[in-house]
């Protein structure tokens, strides 16, 4: 096998941090090379260096044996690299096809040949089983579909080295398997795939080789045929990690959240949530499983007061909150860890302290009349920083400088600090490392045990299976199944999620 890509002694220092410490990595032509490691292990920095986003301090990159220096991603793309980012880089107001062809537009007499663009994108989408309408406008699309557009973008550019940064986070098991088929097909056609993931099961099923990063060093190169998930995990964390077991729930309490015949309309006034009813009782975790774009986001927004309710009622701890604003719902006992932690869950430009204050600024503890109690605000922030082990030098630092896991801890700490009867947790562990996942799960289980009602939405079926007392499956805006996590496997949940078992079929 020929070497496609070689990294030699890549080192990158940031003030006070050695993000990459002499990393060597060799990827061969036609292999799926998994790069695993916790957040802060240096994966993202390494990939940013490889993709030309930041220059390395030391070390060199060789593509097909030739030393290269990338000054920008454009250089990297010219050398045949493609990257599917974790955070989407798309133009919201343009169509899927327009996004995919950007900078490589098929032209006819100097004008963009839209027909050909749409046809070409459709062709690619069909070839790899990525269900996308090329003429749809990106801002109307749910997160899961955006991921597919990102993958299409890289495929369209004929990348010979494809970097996939956690591409499976929003896919169902079936879609994930289809993506893995795509990846295998790409590998068989001679491409090299660098696959970044936290999920060891995925690594085991798809990798040809595994490189484990820890604290900026490549600590192990493993062969999936001869290693185990436990071994990989040990290399990643430097210790043994026990998955959090929810344990048997204590006795269920009263109904905390009651949703009745809830209908929500989305874009083009189509119903995106149709006639949904369910209860969440004190001391239980109800998990909602659904493929992205099946109404779960809108359902949560409607409950949280961020989206208009067409009909139906939402009751929280006996209070009808259907027509209350966000502040009213929070007063009634709602806390909410939102899916989009960068834009909704936190404000990057605001300090950690200001982020931790949100939602409490009108409580008597935090204000005296129109004025904030500065002492109380600082104490609150300091206490949560310590209690939730938020790694930051001080609470006056801008939240935007925190890593994904730490940022999520900020949102988690804020939402769990006031012991609300209802906690809505939406993708609480998406994109955070194993250590933080363990921490977040422990916290959620502890909240459940003290009698909180938890509504959990996750694309991570293993997460739902290990934490939920009951699983509700949503498909096309309706709840199509209620499952017992102890009696179903991933495949069966996945089948419900894709509408395979509607109405008892």
């Amino acid at each position: 096998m020929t070497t496609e890509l070689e990294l030699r002694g890549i080192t990158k220092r940031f003030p006070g941090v050695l993000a990459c410490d002499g990393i060597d990595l060799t990827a061969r032509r036609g292999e799926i090379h998994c790069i695993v490691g916790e957040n802060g292990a240096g994966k993202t920095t390494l990939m940013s260096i490889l993709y030309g986003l930041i220059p390395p301090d030391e070390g060199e990159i060789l593509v097909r044996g030739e030393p290269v220096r990338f000054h920008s991603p454009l250089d990297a793309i010219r050398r045949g690299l493609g990257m599917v980012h974790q955070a989407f880089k798309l133009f919201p107001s343009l169509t899927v096809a327009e996004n995919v062809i950007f900078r490589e537009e098929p032209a006819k007499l100097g004008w963009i040949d839209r027909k050909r663009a749409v046809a070409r994108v459709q062709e690619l989408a069909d070839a790899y089983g990525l269900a996308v309408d090329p003429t749809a406008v990106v801002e109307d699309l749910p997160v899961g579909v955006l991921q597919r557009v990102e993958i299409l973008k890289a495929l369209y550019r004929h990348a010979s080295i494809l970097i996939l940064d956690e591409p499976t986070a929003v896919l169902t098991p079936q879609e994930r398997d289809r993506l893995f088929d795509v990846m295998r097909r790409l590998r068989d056609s001679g491409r090299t795939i660098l696959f970044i993931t936290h999920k060891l099961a995925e690594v085991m099923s798809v990798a040809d080789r595994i490189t484990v990063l820890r604290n900026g060093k490549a600590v192990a190169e493993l062969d999936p045929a001869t290693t185990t998930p436990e071994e990989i995990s040990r290399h990643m964390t430097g210790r043994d990690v026990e998955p959090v077991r929810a344990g048997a729930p204590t006795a269920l309490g009263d109904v905390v959240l009651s949703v009745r015949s809830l209908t929500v309309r989305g874009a083009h006034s189509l119903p995106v949530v149709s006639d949904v009813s369910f209860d969440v009782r004190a001391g239980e975790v109800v998990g909602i499983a659904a493929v992205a774009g099946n109404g779960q986001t809108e359902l949560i927004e409607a409950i949280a007061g961020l989206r208009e309710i067409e009909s139906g009622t939402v009751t929280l701890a006996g209070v009808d909150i259907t027509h209350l604003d966000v502040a009213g719902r929070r007063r009634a006992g709602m806390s909410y860890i939102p899916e989009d932690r960068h834009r909704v869950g936190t404000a990057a430009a605001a300090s950690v302290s200001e982020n931790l204050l949100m939602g409490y600024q009108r409580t008597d503890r935090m204000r005296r009349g129109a004025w904030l109690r500065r002492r109380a605000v600082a104490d609150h922030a300091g206490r949560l920083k310590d209690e939730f082990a938020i790694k930051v030098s001080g609470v006056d630092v801008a939240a935007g400088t925190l890593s994904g896991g730490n940022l999520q801890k900020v949102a988690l700490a804020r939402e769990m600090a006031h012991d609300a009867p209802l906690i809505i947790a939406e993708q609480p562990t998406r994109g955070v490392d194993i250590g933080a996942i363990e921490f977040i799960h422990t916290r959620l289980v502890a909240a459940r045990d003290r009698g909180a009602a938890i509504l959990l939405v996750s694309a991570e079926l293993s997460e739902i299976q290990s934490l939920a007392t009951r699983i509700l499956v949503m498909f096309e805006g309706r709840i199509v199944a209620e499952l017992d996590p102890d009696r179903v496997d991933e495949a069966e949940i996945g089948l419900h999620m894709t509408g395979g078992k509607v109405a008892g079929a």
Partner: protein
Amino acid sequence: MTVALVVAFGLGAVVIALTGGDPLAAFGEMLTGGFTGSGLRNTLSRMIPIVGMALAFSLAFRSGVLNLGGEGQMLMGALFGTMTAIVLPGPGPVVIVAALLVGAAVGALWALLPALGQTKFQVPLLITSLLLNYVARATTSYLVRYPFGEPGAAFASTVAVPESNRIPDFPFLGGGISISLFFVFGLVALLAVVYRRSVFGYETAMLGFSGPFARYGGVDVERKTLLVMASAGAIGGLVGSHLVLGETYRYIDADMIAQTGFAWTGLMVSLLAANRPVAILLAGFFFAGLQIGGFAMERATKVSWQLAEMIQALVIVAVVSRLGLTWRRRRKLGEEVGPPQPEMETAHVGEV
């Protein structure tokens, strides 16, 4: 800031030299003309509208509301404030306060139009607030020519405000400085404290940082938008009323149209000061001095006054580009601890 000044004055010097002037002499005149003697008094006077309009702009801008309607809010407030001072009977101080209140109220109502357009009908405030300036210009021009105008006057203006109803000058400082300056200082102090220490200041700052975050946290985004716009418009109306009641004593159409420049200078000052009230006061003092000094320079050296305006704009350009540099540097630092921060580089897509 220092770099920005050096760059701006450096380029200004090049321009002066190219037009055959002596840069050092010109800048010398500018400095002495703007910051000493009667020039300093004029500078302090000019600070009133500049700092006032800058505070009005900052109030909305730091809340994520881009209010470009300052000049309209100023004109409408000025005309109605003036008319109140002209027609309302009663003791002077009472009439002045009433006139200022009317000016503030009309400015606030004018600012609420685009705000309501945005919150109720999703019409972008940025555009409507700007376009309403033209409506305000035409409306005030019409009113001051016909219903409110002085009959038989050579140029379109109201009659003079009765002497008892004018805002007085400080009895000291050599005269010529309106006591409005005192209230501008008060407003700076008030806003500085409100921005940093109040629940309102906190919520609006978060709104400015991220609308979705504020909304999610229970901040009533619509009400806050209306509130900051009304407050900004009220300050604009006060500034406009001061310009007549404290400076020209009659609303002269052509004059007031020229004064709308203060709204834009104020915008620049607020940008330069990153919306911080105390910094606005300092930057406002500096810009006022540049303008007054520019007049002195033109009188003494035949270097055109427009050069002072050019330097102002260059300071902004230099400051803004330096901000861009630090921004980029900070972004790189941000990557040390985690993935690249998506809010800086990524198109935000998805539901709101």
